[in-house]
């Protein structure tokens, strides 16, 4: 065994990762090599020192609680028990139950969609996941969706208004295929997800900030749109407003 080989292997030795045969080989080399003896002692010493320190971090109680809360719990009031409670009342409360259930369901679905949009946005920022069709030309991006998804997403070039069209891709949110139209603002990426029935119908645009991302949702021509990015809320609002304005103009003309 050469020193170069031993240099790597002695880490496996101190980590107890070698079988008896290899361990003997490394030890035999170390026994007749002063330099490797020194190395072995040095790394054992380092490991010892590291293990003597307090290097772990405890998850904050708030984090533990929010994860725990987010996992469905048997003692938590769920939709079914909520409905059952109402069902024992009169007709009026049955109607109330129905509307409450609707709100609860919608709310749940909207939260889930926002969560999945964040995941999809993050995924898209990893290498090679951003676009299936790479083009700054809306007349290339729009037809690409034909046959891939059951709707004609509005693909609008906003380059002249400060948001560069980068391309499009097919993504999945809430188990359904959605059109993702990708824009760039300086170095920031904006994903615009478009689908039918992706969350509730919103009478007015809704802006929110979740996990450090800004999100703007709105409804247009029976489609749900959700824009997500790490640009600041004002710029995302500007994006949404310009998109809506251009969309209206396209339909009017």
């Amino acid at each position, binding site marked *: 065994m050469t020193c170069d080989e031993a240099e790597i292997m002695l880490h496996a030795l101190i980590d107890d990762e070698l079988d008896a045969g290899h361990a003997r080989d490394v030890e035999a080399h170390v026994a007749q090599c002063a330099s490797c003896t020194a190395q072995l002692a040095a790394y054992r010493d380092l490991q010892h020192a590291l293990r003597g320190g307090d290097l772990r*971090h405890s998850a904050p109680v708030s*984090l533990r609680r*929010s*994860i725990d809360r987010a*996992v469905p719990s048997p003692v938590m009031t769920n939709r079914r028990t909520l409905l059952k409670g109402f069902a024992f009342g009169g007709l009026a409360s049955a109607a109330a139950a129905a509307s409450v259930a609707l709100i609860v369901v919608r709310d749940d679905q909207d939260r889930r969609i926002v*969560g999945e949009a964040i995941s999809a946005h993050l995924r898209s*920022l990893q290498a090679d996941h951003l676009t299936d069709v790479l083009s700054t030309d809306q007349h290339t991006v729009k037809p690409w969706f034909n046959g891939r998804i059951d709707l004609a997403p509005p693909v609008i070039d906003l380059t002249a208004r400060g948001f560069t069209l980068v391309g499009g891709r097919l993504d999945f949110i809430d188990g359904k295929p959605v059109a993702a139209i990708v824009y760039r603002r300086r170095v920031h*990426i904006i994903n615009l997800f478009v689908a039918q029935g992706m969350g509730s119908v919103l009478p007015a645009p809704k802006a929110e900030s979740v996990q450090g991302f800004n999100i703007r949702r709105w409804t247009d021509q029976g489609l749900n749109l959700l824009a997500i990015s790490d640009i600041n809320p004002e710029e995302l609002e500007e994006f949404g407003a310009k998109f809506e304005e251009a969309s209206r103009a396209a339909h009017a003309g």
Partner: protein
Amino acid sequence: MAFEGGGDRGKAERFRSAALPYLDDVYTLARYLLRNAADAEDAAQECYLRAFRHFETFRGGPIKPWLLAILRNVCRAEYARRGALAGLLADGFEEAEQAADGLWTEGGQSPEAETLHRLDSETMQRLIRELPDTFREAVVLREINDLSYREIADVTGVPVGTVMSRLARGRALLRTAWLAEEKAS
């Protein structure tokens, strides 16, 4: 943020008892990978969200490496977000490798066998945080998350041989930095 509501309470309970005990491990790795407490909290939360969603795909065995692999993917997405696009990420890795090459030669060729002086935990944490990404990841998974080489290879998606050389480099860098810290203080 809520997980998908509904049906399978049994799944939720199984997930809770299997995965929650490793929250400190997940959070610790996130702290070292992202070097920032707020981002680490978000990443750990996202990790558990994804883990719960895909819990059906977990095929038994130790769950800790499975969770840490998910966490690592979340963190890489965060790197990508920070770098805006993945190109910067690749550059970062190259720079780290080059920087490490220099130090490796320096620290590796003339080992100083002297015993390390004790440093306080905060200083040790800082020295680990300052390691280049790939080596920091290997060192933390081994020394702090206590994973085997095979598990580290699975989590990071590289062969065991690569894990060994990263660990060797990571430790060499850490020891060099440790000795420099002693001299400076």
